């Protein structure tokens, strides 16, 4: 299982996927907002979204898990 983590501190602006959805490596899965900039976070591996740990609007620190993927 792989985790997608926040590359920097910020708030979760948009979650682009749903639990159970198939994603491919490099696909944007979450958009963070930090210092007035939108920061897209990509899936590092292809797989299925297992669990989403955050909600839109919640604040995350660098390294915090955003969602987990089961590799396909």
């Amino acid at each position, binding site marked *: 299982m792989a985790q997608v983590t926040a590359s*920097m501190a910020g708030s979760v602006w948009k979650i682009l996927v749903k639990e159970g959805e198939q994603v491919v490596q490099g696909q944007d899965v979450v958009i963070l907002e930090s210092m007035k*900039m939108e920061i897209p976070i990509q899936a590092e591996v292809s797989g299925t979204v297992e669990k989403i740990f955050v909600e839109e609007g919640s604040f995350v620190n660098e390294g915090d898990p955003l969602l987990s993927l089961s590799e396909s």
Partner: protein
Amino acid sequence: MKIKKVLIANRGEIASRVIRTCQKLGIQAVAVYSEADQALPYVRQADEAYLIGPGPVVKSYLNQEKILEVAQEADVDAIHPGYGLLSENAYFAKKVIDAGLVWIGPRPEVIAQMGEKVTARQVMQKAGVPVVPGSDAVKSVEEAAAIAQEIGFPVLLKASSGGGGMGMYLCHGMDELRSQFPLAQQRAKALFGDDTFFVEKWISPARHIEVQVIGDQHGNVIHLFERECSVQRRNQKVIEESLSPSISQETRQRLYEAALLAARSMHYTNAGTIEFVVDSEENFYFLEMNTRLQVEHPVTEAITGVDLVELQFAIAEGKELPWKQEEMKARGHAIEFRLYAENPKNFYPSPGLLQELSFPVLEGVRIDAGYETGNTVTPFYDPMIAKVIVSGSWREEVIEKAKDALSKISVSGIQTNLPVLLQVLDHPSFVAGKYDTNILNSLPRE
């Protein structure tokens, strides 16, 4: 009326900047701050400071009710909004005035007109100021496509309520326009609460040149020359200078005339800035008007000797402008450098603890900093840490002095764009004064 006590509805370097003029004028300064900002210098520089909420701006600096509550509690006469945050919020300006306080800025109606880009274009066209070829509000992707076809690609899809580099989408062709439009609308709705869009021709290569204007409540309006703001990343300014090093004297005069025409036509009061895009043939077009003090106002102060914040207070008190246009003189040259907490390669934000932040003390170098050693740059706000303003008699001299000043800045703990600023100072186009808004994209990235 004389302003004796003012609330500064802002944070960081601009709050410190306004406090400095308050101290000079004997005005009591009241600061407001979020939980994330309590250690910043402006909080203790103010005569009084009030905690208004947690870090996120919606819970603190954009919380209008809370700020008005503090204004009542602290018994201030006026509110200075700084830039960004609530400074261009016409509803807030009106609430301030309705609460019996002085709003240090233009009338709310003017803020509202200029805040809506579609309306602003119409006002400018009516006044006889050239605007970028484009449209009024478009209702559908079909309408946007038809206009793009007519004016020719590439085009910019722009949110009417956007600004400051946000809410703009460049489309090179029809497919891109069709795929961007719904996404752009969705984002504008989320960011500005308004998904009205219009289409503008994309002008490239382009320079961004803006004219500072200031008007009093007695119908007098003057300009304070122009600022060249073409060094940008993500459509946000990084370096600004005054005067512009490249335009002809004739174009310069025409820019001033257009700016005055625009400001006079709307009976503009207080400080404002009219931004133009200038193409390679020196044709210029109105882009937007900022109805507030500008981040880069210090370069204008450096070449004119005017304290713009002092003038803002005087005008808000009802005083007449102390000078006529022909009495205004621009002397020498000034360049401002914005020090950002960001990765110098991809310009991504770099929040964190400032283990060290120190600036040299040099003649002709002004530092407007929002932070000091030991402060944390948090992800809630704009990444600007400080502005370095360098002035002198000649542009060449200013560039040399700037290299010296910037190389003597010590900053550690986070990444900054300092290497980029130094790279620009050695860039042949910058040195020659002949650059456009692409200059940062043309820097070598190792």
